[in-house]
C-alpha cells in the first residue's frame, strides 16, 4: 500500500525488514555498544580498517525501531570503503541533516542517506536515527559504550 509519510519511506521500511551488514564481525578490531535509554534501543557496531585507515568492513547487530535499524543499515552500506576522515565528515553532515541544520549542498555528499531527512520533523526520533552513528564514532575512538543521552 502507499503511505504518504516522509518518515516511513519504502527504502527505510526495506532496510528495517532486511537490514544490510546485520551480523557481528568475529574478532573485529573496533566495536562499541550503543544504547538509547529513552526507548531501550541497543546496538553494537563492528569495524575493521585497512592499514591506510580505510573502512574495510563494517556491520551491526542489535534491536531497535525501524528508524534506528534502517539508519544503522544505511550507514554500514555508505561507509564501507570510506576513509576515516570521510566517515567523520559524513557523520557531521548526517547529523546536521537530521537535526534540520543542513543547507542544500551539504546533504549532497550524503547520497542515499538523504532518505532519512524526514526524521528532522520528529524531534523525539532524532536520537533513534543518530544512535548507530554515535556508536560508530565511539568504535573508531576506541571507547566501549555510547549513549544518545
Amino acid at each position, binding site marked *: 500500500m502507499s503511505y504518504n509519510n516522509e518518515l516511513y519511506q519504502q527504502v527505510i*521500511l526495506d532496510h528495517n525488514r532486511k537490514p544490510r551488514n546485520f551480523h557481528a564481525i568475529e574478532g573485529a578490531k573496533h566495536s562499541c555498544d550503543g544504547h538509547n535509554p529513552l*526507548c531501550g534501543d541497543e546496538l553494537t557496531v563492528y569495524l575493521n580498517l585497512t592499514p591506510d585507515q580505510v573502512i574495510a568492513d563494517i556491520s551491526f547487530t542489535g*534491536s531497535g*525501531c525501524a528508524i534506528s535499524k534502517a539508519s544503522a543499515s544505511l550507514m554500514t552500506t555508505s561507509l564501507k570503503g570510506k576513509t576515516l576522515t570521510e566517515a567523520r565528515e559524513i557523520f557531521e553532515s548526517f547529523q546536521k541533516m537530521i537535526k534540520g541544520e543542513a543547507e542544500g549542498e551539504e546533504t549532497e555528499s550524503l547520497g542515499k542517506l538523504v532518505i532519512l531527512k524526514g526524521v528532522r520533523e520528529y524531534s523525539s526520533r532524532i536520537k533513534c536515527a543518530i544512535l548507530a552513528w554515535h556508536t560508530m564514532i565511539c568504535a573508531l575512538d576506541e571507547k566501549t559504550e555510547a549513549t544518545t543521552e
Partner: protein
Amino acid sequence: MPKPVDTITTGNSLDMDKVRSEFPMLSKVIRGKKLIYLDNAATTQKPWRVIHRAIQFETDEYATVRRGSYRLGEEATESYENVRSEIAKFIGAGSPEEIVFTSGATQAINLVAHSYGRKVVGEGDEIIISHMEHHANIIPWKLLCDEKGATLKVIPVNDKGELLLDEYKKLLSYKTKIVAVTHVSNALGTVNPVEKIVALAKEVGAVTLVDGAQSCAHMRVNMFNLGCDFFVFSGHKMYAPSGVGVLFGKSELLDVMPPYVTGGEMIKTVTFDKITFADPPHRFEAGTPPVSQVIGLGAAIGYLNDTGLSRIERHEKQLLNYAISTLKKIQGLRIIGDAENRAGVVSFTLDAVHPHDVVTILSEEGIAVRGGHHCAQPIMRRFGVPATVRASVGVYNTFEDIDALADGLKKAIRVFA
C-alpha cells in the same frame, strides 16, 4: 472561556458529551486530526474548572501563604489550607496535618526515603519493593540501601503480572524495615492487593508506603481501609496542574521525622546555635510552595468528587474490557500483563512494528499513546520486552477512542507489512 458545566452525571453513568465538553484540550485538532488522548497514565488533561480556579486565584486572590499577615495573604493561606482539608477527606486521612504538599509523587517518595528511611534503616536491614515499581519507587530505596548497607528485596510477579504473595511472605522478616509498593502498575495496569500487603508488613513491624500515582484518580482510596503508613500521589495524573503532589503520612510517623528539604517556613525559631522545626506538615514544606497549583488541585478534587469515583471506575473498566477485546483481535498483537484485577492501562507489542514506530504512526492519526519502558525497566525485562506501547484511559475517553486506536494499529501493521 466557557463556564464549567455543573452536572456531568446522570444516575449511575457518565454523560460523555458533558464530560468531554469540560476538557478544552479534547477539542484540539493536530494537523487536521482530532486529538485522541490515551496517555493518561503519564499525565491527564485538565477540566475547565481546574483551569478557571487557578486563573481566578492568580488574577484575583494571589499572595503567598503562611507569611504576610495582610488580608490577602491570610485569605490565600486559608484557601491553600482548605485544599489540605479537602485532600484529607478525599483519601480518608485522619486529619489535614497528615497531608504534606510536595512537587509530586517522586518527591514524596524521596522525602520518606531520606527523612524516615535514613532514620530507621541500618546495616543488615531490608527494604521490600515489587518487581513492577516505577523507577521513582525503586531508586530512592536502592540508594538508601547502598548507603546504609541494607538489602533491597523484590516481590516477584507471575506471568499475568500479578504479585506473588506467597513469595512476599517469605521475604518478610524482623529485618524488614520498609515495604514500598505501587497501588496500580503504570506499566501493566495491575491493581495490587495493597491492604493485604500492608497487613502482612505490619505483622513484622515494617512501615509501609503505597505509591498511589496511578490509583487515586481512578478508584476511591481510603487511608483507613488501606492501613498504610505513607501514601503518595501526583496532581497532574488526576486532572490537576503539574508541579504539585501529596504525601500522606500517619501523624505518629511524621511527628518524629526530621526535615528533608530545609529553609524558610519549616521552622519555629532559628538562631545560629539552635533551630527548632515546625510541626508537620509544615516541617516538610520548606520554601514557597506551588500555591496556584495547590489551589488547582483542590478544584480537581472537587471535580472527582462531583463526577463520582465509582462512576469513573465503572466507566474506565468498561473501556478497559472493550480495549482488551478489541486489541486481541489484531493479529500479531501481544498484550503484556493479564491481571485479574486491573485498571485502565493496556501495554502491548506488535510483532512487526517496534513500539516507537507505532507511536509515531498513531501520532500522525492524532492519537497520543506512550511507547517505551514507562520508567519501569525491571518489569519490562521480566516480560522480555525492551519497550511496549501503552494506552491508558481517563474519565473522558470513549469507545470511539478505542476504535480509533485499533484502526491506527492496523494502519501501522499495513505500513510495515
